[in-house]
Structure formats: C-alpha cells, structure tokens
C-alpha cells in the first residue's frame, strides 16, 4: 500500500443572502426579448441617442449577426438571445440626490453598503446602476472645480459628445468578437470619467452595477480617460440576485491612460450563479503611463474575463493582480492579456485561482511582445489551489515574442493544501477547519492587499462565506 487514504474536502454551496435579496420587478419599461433591428431602434429612441449612435448600434447588430460564437473557452451555447431582455429601464430617473432614489432600489444599495462608503468620504464619487440605467451619480465638488467629469454614459453622450465619439468602442471594436458586437448594439448605462491633465484624484471613484430583473442583460459601458500626468483609482462592483433563468452581462470597459498618467481599476465581481458574464475590458497606455488592474471574480455561472493592456508608448507599464474562486456550478475562465508594442515596456501578471465543489477555474493569458518592443520585460506568476477532485483547474498561458532583446518569464503552480501546513497549524492549537481557511486566506492575500480596505474586507468575507462549514 502506497499511502494512507487522504482526507477529502467536502463542500456545500454557499449562502449569498445579502446579494440574493430580490426586489419586486417594478421596471418602467422593458424591451421585448431577443435582438432585432426594431428593438435596437426602440432602445435608441428611448435613450435619445444622436443619429451617429443609432447608426453605430445598427452596424454592430449586423456585425453581431455575422459572427459566430467562440470556438474556445467555456460553452456559452446555453445562452439563448431570444430569451434575453436587453433593455430594462428602472422606475427611476438619474439623480444626484440619494434621497430621491426610489425606496426599493435605495434599500438594495444600502444593503450592499454603497452610500455608506460615500458618506464616510472614502470615495470621491459614486455611481449606481440598476438594471439598464444609472439611477444615481455624485462627485465631490472640489473635483468638479478641477475639471474632473464623472457621470453616466448617457449624460456624457449629451454633454461631452465629441469626447465620447472620439473614444467610444475604438479599443474594443464591435467586430472584435460576438459579444462586443452585441454590446455595441444594445449598450446602456455605465460610467464616464475624464481626468484633465495633471489632476490627481486622490480618493477612489466607485460605480456599482446591480441587475435585478430576471432573464435580463446588462450592457453598461465604462469609458475612462486619464490625461497626461493625471491619476485615478476607479472601483467597480457588480452583483445580482439569483434566478432560475439565465441573465447576461456583456459590459465593456475602455481605459485610456495618457503619457505619464496612472490608473488603477479595481473590480470585485459577485454576480449570481445564473449569470453569463462575458465582459470585455481594455486599456491603452501611452508613454510612461501605468495601468494597474485588480480583479476579483467570485460570482457568475460562466465568466469569460481577460482584461487586455496595450502598452503603446515607450516605458508604459501594466500590473495585473487577480483572484478567481470557482465553486459548484461555476465555470470561471479568467486571466489577462498584454501587448507590448513599444520599447522598454514592462508588465507583471500575478494571479491566484481556487476551485472547489465541482467548480472549474481556468487561467488563460496572452503576452505578446511585438518587434517594436525591444528591451521589454514581462513576468507572469499564476498559482492554482484545488480544494477537492470534483473540481477542475486549468492554466493556459501563451507567450508570443517577436523581439530578441527581451526578458519574459512565466511560472505556474497547481496543487492542494499541503498536509504539512495543516499539521503545523494544528500543532499550534488551531483547529483544522480554521487552519485550512487561514491557508486559503494566505493564498489570496497578495491580491487582497492590493484592494482598498472595504473591498479587501468584502473579499475576505466572500472567501469565508465560501469556506464556512465546508472543510472536513
């Protein structure tokens, strides 16, 4: 006999009470299910789009119809667009006064702690989107005086049309993939941030996206422009209650980091387990600019999320830090991609994935160093922890190097919680469940420490919720 039987970790599904409270569906308007030209024209008219945006939507729809589903990654064939409601207007108008937000919607965000963070002055601005529309937006007065714009995309399209027209879906063109085309056709809501040259926004801005309606899609567009020498920390949070029908999130994030600018983009994603999260995020970084991604993926039934950084200017930098926790019924395909397109660019990718109770976690990445990027450096580190053998954990990184004067390193590990570590901790008087939880928390700690305090606490709570009573 080679070894004694090893203990297996037993895992139950988690309690998501806080996130799963549903409001009654009081939407003032819902589009028909499915995707047709009539629906797109209807959405566009209701949103008072300028003519070019209607044209953009219709072209995107044609692109959507011409593209097929990806031949790689998680199976998304169970998504039936004929059953998805693409536009749900909540029974509320956009306001800058929290008291004017309808009670049911306000209660939802109160439960999630959104206004609390704003009141504590730990956020410089807050946006809240409920289904397809932004219901609340605010920003500190002193930032407005410095020329910082933080508003919903619809307002931006009216008040800053030239800027929107210049940048909108140029980093993620609709023909990029089927769900980018879908987004181009039906996008609604999202945040617009413009930070003028040299302005440092010292306290984070935060947008929170909540999808309440069953069988609906959320397609918010986030457009952030950080001008030369400016800096910003932007946080997005996402959640939805659980339904027995498929919901779809196909958002799009476009970040423009100009010369010497710095942008940190943090996300804690906790969509419910019936969500298809097919989100596209990209950043274009100019000379000496820095993009920092901090990404926590906990929710969703299926996720495909690989933020891409294009380092276009000499000396541009990218740091990506991500954690993914896949549990029962989840197939979370996450990672990052970086394109080094200028000399002396550098990137660091650091990820942790955990899978348990039949969950499937995939780390997928691409690092491309073009021939225009000599003297570039890239370091990738991904570690995967499997809590049981009902789960899957895969890593699929690709490095594509076309310049010789480069330094590219990749390292990955996969494994379980070591018996020695458990033995050590239990010998110090810690019970075994707590010892395992400590090890998992330690495993994600490099990610947690990159998050703002409230989010680090939220992430730890999510990890604890996942582990509670499940180890044995």
């Amino acid at each position: 006999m080679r070894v004694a039987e090893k203990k297996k970790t037993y895992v139950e599904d988690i309690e998501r009470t806080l996130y799963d409270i549903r409001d009654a569906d009081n939407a003032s308007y819902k589009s028909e299910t499915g995707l047709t030209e009539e629906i797109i024209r209807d959405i566009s008219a209701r949103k008072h789009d300028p003519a070019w945006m209607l044209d953009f939507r219709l072209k995107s729809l044609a692109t959507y119809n011409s593209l097929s589903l990806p031949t790689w990654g998680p199976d998304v064939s169970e998504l039936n667009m004929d059953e998805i409601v693409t536009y749900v207007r909540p029974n509320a108008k956009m306001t800058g006064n929290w008291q004017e937000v309808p009670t049911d919607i306000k209660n939802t965000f109160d439960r999630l702690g959104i206004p609390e963070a704003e009141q504590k002055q730990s956020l410089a601005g807050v946006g809240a989107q409920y289904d397809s529309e932004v219901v609340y937006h605010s920003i500190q007065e002193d930032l407005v005086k410095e020329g910082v714009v933080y508003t919903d995309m619809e307002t931006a399209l009216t008040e800053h049309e030239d800027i929107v027209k210049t940048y909108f879906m140029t980093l993620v063109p609709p023909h990029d993939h089927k769900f980018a085309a879908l987004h181009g056709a039906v996008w609604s809501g999202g945040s617009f941030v413009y930070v003028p040259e040299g302005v440092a926004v010292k306290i984070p801005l935060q947008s929170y996206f909540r999808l309440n309606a069953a069988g609906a899609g959320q397609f918010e567009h986030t457009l952030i422009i950080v001008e030369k020498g400016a800096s910003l920390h932007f946080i997005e949070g996402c959640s939805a209650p659980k339904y027995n029908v498929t919901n779809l999130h196909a958002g799009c994030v476009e970040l423009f980091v100009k010369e010497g600018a710095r942008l940190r983009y943090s996300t804690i994603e906790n969509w419910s387990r019936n969500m298809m999260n097919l989100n596209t995020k990209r950043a274009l970084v100019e000379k000496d600019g820095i993009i920092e991604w901090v990404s926590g993926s906990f929710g969703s039934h299926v996720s495909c999320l690989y933020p891409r950084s294009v380092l276009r200017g000499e000396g541009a930098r990218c740091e990506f830090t991500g954690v993914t926790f896949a549990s029962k019924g989840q197939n979370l395909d996450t990672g990052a991609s970086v394109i080094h397109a200028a000399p002396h660019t550098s990137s660091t990718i650091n990820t942790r994935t955990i899978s348990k109770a039949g969950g499937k976690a995939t780390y997928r990445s691409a690092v491309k160093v073009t021939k225009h990027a000599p003297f570039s450096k890239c370091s990738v580190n991904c570690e995967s922890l499997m809590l049981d053998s009902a789960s899957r954990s895969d890593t699929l990184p690709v490095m594509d190097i076309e310049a010789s004067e480069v330094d590219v390193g990749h390292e990955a590990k996969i494994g379980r919680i070591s018996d020695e570590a458990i033995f050590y901790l239990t010998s110090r008087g810690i019970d075994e469940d707590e010892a395992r939880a400590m090890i998992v928390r330690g495993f994600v700690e490099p990610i947690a420490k990159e998050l703002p305090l409230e989010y680090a606490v939220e992430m730890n709570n999510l990890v604890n919720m996942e582990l509670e009573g499940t180890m044995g």
Partner: protein
Amino acid sequence: MRETKTFSRIPMRTWRWLGVNDLPAPADLDDAIKKEQILVQKGQRDEIVRAFRTGGNYEVQVHLEAGAALHLVLAQLAPQAESCTCRVRVRCAADAKFAATLAEVGARHAAAELFVDLAEEGAGADVWGLYFGDGEQKLDLNYVIRQGGTHTDANMQVRGALKGHAEKIFRGTLDFLEGSSGSVGRENEEVVLLSDGVRNRSVPIMLSHEADVDGHHAVSVGKMDEDRLFYLMSRGLDLAEAQRLVVEASLAPVLSRIPDAALREEIDQFLQERITNG
C-alpha cells in the same frame, strides 16, 4: 489551392489570433508515413536511437509493459530544403518508465507531436528536448503527458535557441486526470533568442482534475545572458564564439543524454556551424 491539413491539435483551445491551436501539416508532404512499433516487455529495459536524415512523415508507437523502461532517442536532422513530421505515441503500464531525448534541428518546416499516456500507477516520463531554428525555419511542437494513474511522475525539460527569421511554437501540456492522486509534474522551457527577426511562441499548459497533485511549469524567454557573454569576451573570445558557447551550454543538458557519441557529435557539429555562420 491545396487544403491545409491539421497534423496535431493543442489539448485545450485558446484565442485564434495567437495562431497556436492547430499544427498544420507541411504542405509539401504526401500522406505516406514511415511507422515503427516498439514493445518493451514486462520488467525489461531498452535504449533505442533513431536519426531522421531525410524529410517525410515518421511515426513511432511505443508500448511499455509493467515495470519496463525505455530510453528513446530521436534526432530530426532532415535537410533544410525538406519538411518533416514526427509523431510519437507512448503508453506506459504500471511502474513503466519512459525516457526520451528529442532533438529537432533539421527541416525547413518541422512538426512534432509527442503523446505519453501514464495510464497506470507509478508510471513515469522523463522527456528532454532541444530545438534550434534559423533562416526561415518553422518548428511546430506539441508535447503532451497525460497522467491518469496514481503516483505518476512527469518531467518535461525543453531547451532551444532561435536565430535569423526562424519561427517556433512549443506547446507543452501536463494533464492530471481525475484519480491521478499523488502525481507530480514539472515542465520547463528555456529559449534563447539570437536575432531580432525570430518569432517564439511558448504555450505551457497545465490541466488538472485532481486536487492531490503537485504541478509546476516555467518558461523563460529572452536574449542571452549578458554577464556570461561579457565574461567570455573578456577572456578573448569574439562575440560569435561567445554566443556559440552560451547556446551550447544551454543545450548541453539535453545533448549530453544522447548515448551514441557519433550522433551527439554530429548534432553538436551541426549546431556549431549554424550558430556561428547561419
């Protein structure tokens, strides 16, 4: 236009724009395959050396019975004007140990697939590969070790150097199946890039459906270590000579495993000329 055939496929597909999912069969080769079957019986040990000095399609099937051991040495030295494919399929029974030393240095377009099935308890694979590409050479490699049995051990070590406008894709996969508890796997690729015109794609894949495993993979791609070059040049070597020594040193752990001194010398000579003159 002649339809492109697929010679081999990556075990798990990814983005199309990276061009790594499929290995196309070289367009100038027909379908004829030179096949060889190797059986090592229970408890036996063997060492087999093959050198492919002409282009074409080669296939080697290996079956190791329980407790058997084989060291398979394959050197692909086809002329630069020709194309070559090589497919090696290995099945290891309980406690069988498969060792391989693979050299891919010839042919204008070379495609190679290695699939090792560690199907039973205690089976092991120790795979060492080297490649060198220069000029307009295309190297397309796909190595997979599938770990199905308990307590299997996989080691995949690959060293390479690229020069001129050579293009290379190396996919190395460790696949831990459900039930492969107690298994370990290590994979490492080190690539030295000698010219600006090269294109190197590395795809180290690790798939796991078993928690009780220990898997590591690492890739290092880049220019030559400048400190080493500086040291060698300070001892009076010119740049080309110093480069040759550094590349040789990085390929040496693989080359030194070739038991046949004449073949080892032949590959070494082949490499030396192309690194220096290429």
